[in-house]
């Protein structure tokens, strides 16, 4: 299996994860979507030096990993390409912001280091939350929820087709990479001289296949609505989950739990 085929397989695995049957999977997609959005907004709203306040925000994704039966390892493995990019945000902060913020014995911690860590954690938490949403909700149900929340058809269709076309494009890339490597033994990757034609061909082939896939959807009655998605009713439990989680996020945002716990223990 080459790299691309593995990527394709991993993408399909997301569908398998989303088809689980845990209590988190059973929640209404709109409830999960709104809760995730609230979580991300609250996480992003923390001040760049508020590392202590931000850390307890990890509790929600950790709890969801446990309840949904989703492996943390799988999450980080699947996010391995995006994670370094997220971690790289704020990497230069220690060089620009040298104001000493903390003194741990003889060790001075600058504001740059704290803000770097805060930015990194924010990114990681948001990615974990997004991953959990995708791993517990089938894409079509998510799109149906977006339509229920009155997100325009065009945007939802774009989201759905992008998700489907990523798979198609990866498949084409897998085939082309394999064909290339068979005729370029011992060569690592695609030679720079072939990049132009390779990308051009990839685009044309993917467009052809994407067109056929979309035609296939149209021929089976697809009208940019998600009649076929799982339409479970929005129950009281879903509303409760949404409200409870959002309240906890806001509580964590406004009450410095870590400091409170620390001072209680010290006392």
């Amino acid at each position, binding site marked *: 299996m080459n790299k691309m085929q593995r990527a394709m397989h991993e993408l399909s695995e997301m*569908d*398998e994860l989303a088809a689980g049957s845990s209590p988190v999977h059973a929640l209404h997609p709109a409830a999960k979507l709104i809760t995730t959005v609230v979580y991300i907004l609250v996480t992003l709203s923390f001040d760049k030096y508020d590392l202590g306040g931000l850390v307890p925000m990890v509790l929600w994704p950790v709890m969801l990993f446990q309840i949904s039966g989703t492996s943390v390892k799988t999450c980080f493995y699947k996010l391995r390409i995006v994670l370094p990019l997220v971690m790289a945000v704020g990497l230069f902060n220690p060089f620009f912001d040298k104001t000493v913020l903390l003194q741990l014995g003889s060790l001075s911690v600058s504001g740059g280091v704290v803000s770097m860590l805060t930015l990194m954690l924010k990114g990681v938490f948001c990615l974990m939350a997004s991953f959990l949403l995708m791993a517990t909700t089938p894409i079509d149900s998510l799109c149906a929820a977006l339509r229920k929340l009155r997100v325009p058809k065009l945007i939802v269709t774009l989201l759905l087709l992008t998700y*489907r076309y990523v798979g198609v494009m990866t498949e084409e890339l897998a085939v082309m990479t394999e064909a290339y490597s068979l005729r370029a033994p011992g060569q690592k990757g695609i030679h720079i001289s072939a990049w132009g034609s390779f990308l051009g061909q990839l685009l044309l082939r993917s467009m052809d*296949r994407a067109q056929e896939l979309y035609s296939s959807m149209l021929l089976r009655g697809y009208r940019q609505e998600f009649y*076929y998605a799982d339409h479970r009713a929005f129950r009281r439990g879903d509303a409760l989950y949404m409200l409870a989680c959002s309240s906890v996020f806001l509580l964590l945002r406004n009450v410095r739990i870590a400091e409170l716990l620390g001072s209680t223990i010290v006392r």
Partner: protein
Amino acid sequence: MIEFQHVSFAYEKDRPVLKDVSFRIEKGEAVGLIGANGAGKSTVMKLLLGLAEGEGRILVDGTEVRRDTLPEIRRKLGFVLQNSDNQMFMPTVYEDMVFAPLNYGLSREEADARADAVLKRLHLEDLKNRYNHKISGGEKRMAAIATVLAMEPEAVLMDEPTSALDPYNRRIVINTVRELEMTKLITSHDLDMILDTCGRVILLSEGRVAAEGPAGEILRDRTLLESNRMELPLSLAGRPY
């Protein structure tokens, strides 16, 4: 059921793919559409399904294929694509099977019942909850046929239904196609399959209808086939050396 009246089509100006094509397919008929590569077989399918627009008239059950009649036309026609990967876009076989019935307004229970009935009829019950990316090519082709049958179309159009299948799976597909009672229009280079499944054949050559008649007659005409860049079906050609 299906009628082409003087249909012409070109993807590029001055390079017509279909030139004044006319034919008629009666309800319940099984017709094979054959021809060399580039003869215009797939274009016929595309025009019939409204995926491309040409000149002339195309009628399905008396209704002309036009932009405003497409939903009605497409509901009557089930199309099995040559590449099953493009047909099976949902995560599982079951989800793909209920996709069309739910889009056409059936309740979840009705769609489930239809999916179950089709799977049982094709002896594919064990495929129901399998993931599309984990089934073999032969299984995927059968599942693609099942998704189309779950629509309960009045006619089935198939583009190369036996391509890239091993002999065993090919035979399964052929037997399944033979058992379908609705109108069938099948394009294929597998002339043995056409001989097995179709009563009539339309031979396209360079965008025109070169011949039309009973499958047994057309497919036995070595001169006709060879003059149109085709060969006798293996079963009629005798044992090859």
